[in-house]
């Protein structure tokens, strides 16, 4: 046999043996390995991801796979059973094309959404009527609201985005925003609002930073306390849906998400509000009643 052929065969044999050996080595540890996947809302993703990392750190061999993809993806994937958890910014009932039957809702957190404007606008408060007028395109220049003479640039989230649905439902009282530019991520929205004179949009509390100006509505400031007491109406639940009642690792992980430690430490940092802190709860139809969501 020629040398080169010999070398080829040796390589093949070594690879096969190594592969087999590796497979053998794997089977020793794999018995207690488990993995589940959560997919969906990009808003909820950092939270679940952070929690999963902590959970994995505490429980060896556990692997929780957290992916984005949007609420629509989360709901349709959980509906089809492709994943164990579907993250959504919306109630399953609110989403067209989803059959909520058989899906179990786990409200993990509450997120407040606030309008933000570019710093140049110098407006810190708007009435609900003004807000509606702005977003439906009736008011097109800030000077109509006593501000500087700058045309208003509306920036929306993409259609179907949870933040947008929440904002239209509770901020605009069900009015639909006029057709305007759309961005499909909060980061981009913030970036655009901060750099575009006269821009107005909305983001969840977690995304507010110094580069943009949050706006009070009817004198109510967008704070977590105001959300807890439903004085700030533009908020929504962050849901994790399971297909049927959760079992096994999914159940354990959901419990972990809901426990005090996570809810108090992680949530604050990320700008989410713990469901436990809520004084009011809301059904998918929008009916508000006192009491936490628990």
């Amino acid at each position, binding site marked *: 046999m020629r040398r080169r052929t010999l070398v080829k065969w040796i390589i093949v044999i070594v690879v096969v043996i190594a592969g087999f050996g590796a497979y053998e080595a794997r089977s020793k540890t794999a018995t207690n390995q488990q993995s589940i996947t959560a997919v969906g809302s990009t808003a909820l993703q950092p939270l679940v991801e952070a929690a999963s990392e902590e959970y994995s750190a505490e429980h060896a061999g556990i692997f929780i796979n957290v992916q984005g993809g949007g609420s629509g993806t989360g*709901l349709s994937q959980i509906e089809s059973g492709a994943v164990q958890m579907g993250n959504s910014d919306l109630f399953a009932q609110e989403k067209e*094309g989803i059959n909520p039957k058989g899906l179990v809702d786990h409200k993990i957190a509450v997120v407040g959404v606030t309008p933000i404007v570019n710093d140049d606008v110098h407006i810190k408060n708007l009435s609900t009527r003004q807000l509606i007028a702005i977003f439906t395109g009736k008011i097109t220049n800030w000077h109509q609201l006593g501000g500087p003479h700058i045309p208003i640039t509306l920036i929306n989230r993409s*259609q179907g985005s949870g933040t947008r649905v929440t904002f239209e439902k509770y901020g605009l009282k069900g009015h639909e925003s006029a057709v305007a530019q759309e961005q499909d991520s909060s980061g981009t929205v913030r970036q655009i609002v901060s750099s575009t004179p006269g821009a107005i949009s909305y983001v969840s509390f977690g995304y507010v930073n110094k580069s943009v100006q949050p706006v009070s509505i009817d004198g109510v400031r967008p704070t977590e306390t105001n959300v807890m007491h439903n004085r700030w109406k533009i908020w929504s639940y962050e849901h994790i849906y399971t297909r049927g009642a959760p079992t096994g690792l999914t159940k354990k992980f959901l419990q972990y998400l809901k426990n005090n430690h996570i809810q108090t430490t992680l949530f604050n940092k990320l700008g989410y509000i713990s469901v436990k802190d809520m004084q009011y709860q809301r059904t998918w139809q929008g009916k508000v009643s006192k009491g936490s969501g628990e």
Partner: protein
Amino acid sequence: MQNQKLAKQLMKKSKTARYERFGHLLSLSALLLIMAIVLGIIIFIATKGLSTFFRDNISFKDFFTGVIWNPGTKTPSGQQAVGALPMIVGSFLVTILAAIVSTPFAIGTAVYMTEISPKRGAKILQPVTELLVGIPSVVYGFIGLSVVVPFVRNTFGGSGFGILSGTFVLFVMILPTIVSMTVDSLKAVPKYYRQASLALGATKWQTIWKVVLRAATPGILTAIVFGMARAFGEALAVQMVIGNAALMPHNLVSPASTLTSVLTAGMGNTVMGSLQNDALWSLALVLLIMSLLFNLMVHFIGRRGAFKK
């Protein structure tokens, strides 16, 4: 008899013939695999995209001529709000404008690289263009957002978001494609054309303009069309700077949208099988068909302009 022995030797299938069969099958199966994938994607998009019309009963007319895009709702006049015209127009405008802006630059650069200073061209421009292909569109988008949009806003007014900004970003993004393909087609022009022209007393510029570019025209057109195809399919970067509003663009600095930007933005937020989702897939189908048209154009140009080497 010796001849029969020879005949037998010649009749026996040699190892070489088996190699050939093997190789033929191997490469054929690779091609078939690709074909399967291509067909898979095309069928996948077509079934999804066509269900808008056949399952959700949206009329082609509403889809291609409507100007209001809000699938799942009705327009004030009562039709389904699935008008894709603004996106189609937007896509076309940015693509064509980007091609118009890029072409002179790309050709100029390519000519520089092949005719004027081949050494420097190969040393600097070639690696740089290859590098640019690898920059993620997000990065292009963000540079567009932080450099191009303010520039357009300050120079041309408006919010800065719009077709013009999209054009500028795409211009840079498709430049490498057009340049490298144009360079290839210029290099394919035989050296002796240049010599013949110079020997007839033409200046360097006359040679480039009247002979080299003319001989390379089909290749250059192909390059442009490929650049346009790339522009047409580009999503993330354009989405960030074009404003992404499903409105008929009334000028170059008003927010508009493209097929891909709406498609990309909406995909995650809609539920598979819903009208909203189907409508997005219809946009993908339009893209696919457009892409087909671009390709047919390339082939047409290629066949018409092909010259023997």
